């Protein structure tokens, strides 16, 4: 599960027109989870999102960067279609098969003060890298 630690972190990085999301973790799964937390933070503070509703995501793609692109786009799709925000991400990846459970709640204007809709993940700054045992997953999202 995505828990912030010294090793598992997320951040936004600047892009003039849009926003970059970056997750780092001890495994590729953790980096994917953290990047999704960064995605939520584009819209609102993830700490304000209660993990009450569960959604499952299943993806298959052997290329780690394309798998990451598909992962972020799947979360964006679920956010949009269900009018939800998510704060808990649990990802497992085995041989190019990603299984995830994500948890969140319906958007509440007063509670979440949601900044902006996310249109999609771009290939800009798309990276999934193992930096000597510390994984990084990132891309720019169009808002």
């Amino acid at each position, binding site marked *: 599960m995505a828990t912030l630690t010294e090793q598992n972190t997320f951040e936004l990085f*600047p892009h*003039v*027109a849009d926003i970059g999301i970056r997750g780092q973790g001890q495994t590729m799964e953790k980096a994917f989870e953290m990047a999704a937390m960064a995605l939520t933070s584009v819209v609102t503070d993830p700490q304000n999102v209660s993990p009450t509703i569960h959604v499952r995501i299943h993806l298959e793609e052997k290329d780690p960067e394309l798998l990451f692109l*598909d992962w972020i786009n799947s979360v964006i799709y679920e956010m949009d279609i269900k009018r939800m925000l998510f704060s808990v991400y649990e990802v497992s990846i085995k041989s190019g098969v990603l299984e995830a459970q994500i948890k969140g709640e319906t958007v509440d204007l007063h509670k979440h003060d949601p900044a*902006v809709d996310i249109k999609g993940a771009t*290939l800009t700054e798309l990276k999934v890298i193992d930096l000597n045992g510390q994984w990084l997953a990132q891309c720019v999202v169009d808002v």
Partner: protein
Amino acid sequence: MELNLFQKINETTWQISAHGNMRVPAIIYASEEIIQNMDNKVYEQLCNVAGLPGIVDKAYAMPDAHWGYGFPIGGVAAFDPEHGGVVSAGGVGFDISCGVRLLHTGMKIDELRSQLPAIADLLYNAVPSGVGSKSRIKLTDKEMKDMLQGGARWALHQGFGESEDLEFIEEHGHMTGARPEYISARAKERQRPEMGTLGSGNHYLELQEVKTIDDPIAAEALGLSLGDAVISIHCGSRGLGHQIGTDYLRDMLVESKKHGINLPDRELACAPIHSEIGEHYLGAMRGGINCALANRQIITHFTREAFQKMFPNSNLRLVYDVSHNTCKSEWHEVDGERKNLFVHRKGATRAWGPDHAELPKKYSTIGQPIFIGGSMGIGSYVLVGTKKAESLSFSSACHGAGRSMSRTEATKIWRGSELIESLKEQGIFIRSGTYRGVAEEAPEAYKNLFSVVDSAAAAELAIKVAHLAPHACIKG
């Protein structure tokens, strides 16, 4: 950017000679000051676009160009399908056919001044906006298909609008060649509850005043006089366009390799126009254009309904509707030969000059109206296209001021609540569901609208007509 990267043609025309993998030269239209402040990524991306198969003449960037996805935003490039020309999902963008439409209220701002806060509330409540907003319209499968094929014409048949509107929309409100079957189920699901919604980010609905007039003849043809109250609507194809962009960007990434296209940057993912995926994307993207045209038509209807509640005799006339994220099949003259080209405009508008066959009769002597969005503090600008733009930029011009600062940086400097108060003191009433979103859209996070417009005019891409100053702004 360093000026020595360019050959200076004149004060606002900067050429990059074809080098490396570039098949054609590239040109940026902008003042020296704008060029110096422009992101180096624009140079890099424009050179990359100039290396794509089948590109014709030159790759162009407008004065508002900035770092985009593969193509720079503010980029224009035309491709010849008979010479291996390609179509690129990134060259259109995620918000297919995002654009601006201008309505005239038939009233002066002085007649409305005392009621501005109430009008802001009225418009905010009439048009769903912001994250999580839903429309009161929910399309069935049949309605979705008809909307994707019919655009604003479909919306009109559903009772949203007046028949006179269609003449004042590009393509007469209906993009031919849409193929709903090439649009994914996910894209349709995202759109189902979003017809007639504004969205968020830089999208807006704004009550404005005609503040200054530069070209009285063009202004008269457009029916704009000093002090007139007008409404600008900026939005696009919502979730449907976003998902079409997502789906085809990925598919083209895989397909470009199969077609032997060597990409210097994978964001340029593209496919030959005459290929299965190229034709599927064009069919889907045209459905996206129709979705955006229908969306702005429905928002227009909601706006008219709202205005009539407060002003029963009001009649909001559509001045024009212009898109700025498209790829369109057009005829252009290149080296003395008329060619059918696929012109990508990513953050750039069409800018037909006078007498063009596709103009409404009423505007045939002045050229195509162009609306340039600025910020909620400065408003927007009206221009018209020139005949010269045909040879300068495949009849294209800029689309907005563009950001000068990232969203993350903006939220560190400004607070939404304070901005709303500060703008209120200037007579601009902001209505939004999000303080953070307002902070991200702070006026000072945008470039100077007037510099961008002046550059477009000096380059003769377009002629300045009028500045529209904001009084009430609905932000998503």
